[in-house]
């Protein structure tokens, strides 16, 4: 577990590294680029359920871009081909890989790139198949940084001194910080679950391991507590001048969900969805992105899929989520609302993109 703690300190250091200033008026689109990009990548592997622990490693990584196609270098499971399903979301399909003994099946996942080319993040799960029918599961999280900015694009200072940045620039800046925080929140939940599992009679964990895990959890908690107030300040600054802004309210909602402040989560979500035109447009974008990511050519509907019909019935019957009366949303925006209920905050935030 000490190894995990050390690894986590590296993660914390990674998140503290300042990234390049938000750059251009026209956001970069990786799906329109051909060439190679270089990244410093932090790999966090969770083998807690495979007789291991949470470990962290840093590697240099190349990604070869061919417009909508890209091939990512080896992060431990061999080179990986993927397809951009939107400007800056790279979808990696599920695939099998050989291990030293046995094999693993990697889940499909999405890698989200920031529009200033300074960072990306993604996470996939895997199932390991060993000898004698042994099976276990785990996950691998990737966080990449690139100090060189977008290829062939000169870095432009985000805001000249004395000039108020645009709302879009402010949201992009806040989103970048929020993404780092939400990845940390996800790790916090995983370490918290692990701590709960080992800190019980009969778990077999040593007192030292339990203490190390709890200390790790405390360290993460402290880092989150330092990180989040400035993020909220950024969003509140936007909302003070544009209180109905869709993105600021949506992002704040997901931050509150990650904090388990569910009344505020619902409040900010409703404020975001009050922008009905944007919410409708985003719901359609999400449908296209999800369908593209899942390799679904025709949208499943309640007419052509009994499973979707049953999901619809069950979702409509839901009275409470997170212990709170979920009520009913507006017909136009209800699907986006319930989509956000169950998706991880990181995914829910990034699936709506950034304002243009």
């Amino acid at each position, binding site marked *: 577990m000490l*190894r995990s703690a050390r690894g986590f300190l590296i993660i914390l250091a990674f998140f503290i590294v300042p990234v390049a200033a938000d750059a251009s008026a026209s956001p970069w689109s990786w799906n329109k680029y051909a060439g190679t990009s270089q990244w410093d990548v932090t790999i966090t592997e969770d*083998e*807690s*359920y*495979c*007789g*291991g*622990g*949470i*470990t962290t490693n840093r590697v240099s990584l190349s990604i070869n871009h061919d417009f909508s196609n890209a091939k990512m270098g080896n992060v431990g499971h061999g080179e990986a081909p993927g397809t951009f399903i939107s400007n800056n979301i790279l979808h990696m399909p*599920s695939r099998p890989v050989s*291990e030293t003994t*046995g094999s693993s099946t990697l*889940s499909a996942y999405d890698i989200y790139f920031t529009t200033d080319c300074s960072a990306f993040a993604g996470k996939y*799960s895997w199932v*390991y198949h*060993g000898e004698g*029918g*042994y*099976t*276990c*599961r785990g996950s691998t999280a990737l966080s990449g940084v690139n100090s060189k900015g977008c290829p062939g694009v000169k870095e432009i200072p985000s805001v000249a001194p004395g000039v108020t940045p645009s709302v879009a620039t402010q949201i992009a800046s806040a989103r970048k910080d929020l993404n780092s925080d939400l990845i940390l929140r996800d790790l916090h*939940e995983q370490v918290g*679950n692990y701590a*709960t*599992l*080992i800190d*019980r009679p009969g778990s*077999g*964990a*040593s007192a030292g391991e339990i203490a190390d895990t709890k200390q790790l959890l405390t360290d993460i908690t402290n880092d989150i507590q330092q990180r989040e107030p400035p993020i909220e300040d950024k969003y509140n600054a936007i909302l003070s001048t544009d209180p109905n802004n869709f993105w600021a309210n949506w992002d704040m909602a997901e931050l509150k969900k990650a904090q388990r402040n569910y009344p505020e989560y619902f409040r900010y979500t409703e404020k975001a969805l009050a922008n009905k035109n944007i919410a409708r447009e985003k*719901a359609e974008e999400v*449908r296209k992105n*999800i369908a593209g*990511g*899942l*390799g*679904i*050519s025709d*949208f*499943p509907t*309640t007419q*052509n*899929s*009994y*499973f*979707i019909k*049953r*999901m619809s019935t*069950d*979702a409509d019957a839901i009275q409470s*989520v*997170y212990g709170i009366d979920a009520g009913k949303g507006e017909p136009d925006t209800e*699907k986006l609302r*319930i*989509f956000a*209920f*169950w*998706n*991880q905050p990181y995914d829910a935030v990034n699936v709506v993109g950034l304002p243009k």
Partner: protein
Amino acid sequence: MLIGIILLVLIAGCSSSSPAGKNPANITPVPTQSGPCMDKACFIAAANDCRDLNVTISEDTGTFTYSSSGACIFTKTLVSLNASESRQIRNVLEGKNMTCMYTRGKFDPRLVTSLVGGIEYCRGDLKDGLARLVIFT
């Protein structure tokens, strides 16, 4: 069978004292009960009491395996969907599972009676798949 193995691994992974990684030698078998308790109502009662139990049930949407453990961990696996579902949807969901930790006496029965009710506190590929597909409902 698969979920039994996963449950064993889940528990055994927690008892590991060093990060060995994907090492079957670290796994300590834990007994898994199965018996006459084979319906949802019985399973919900057992899960609420954090008893070791695996139940596989064929439903109108497909076949699910529900598991509960003495550590108050619930696992739901979608074994197979009806053959009428598209290959893409089956690829997203079949064989996937989600795991939910809960407090003894506070098991959410919707995890068994509904496709989406109560999954907000769970983790896993099945939850992620359901969460994405709900946009199409």
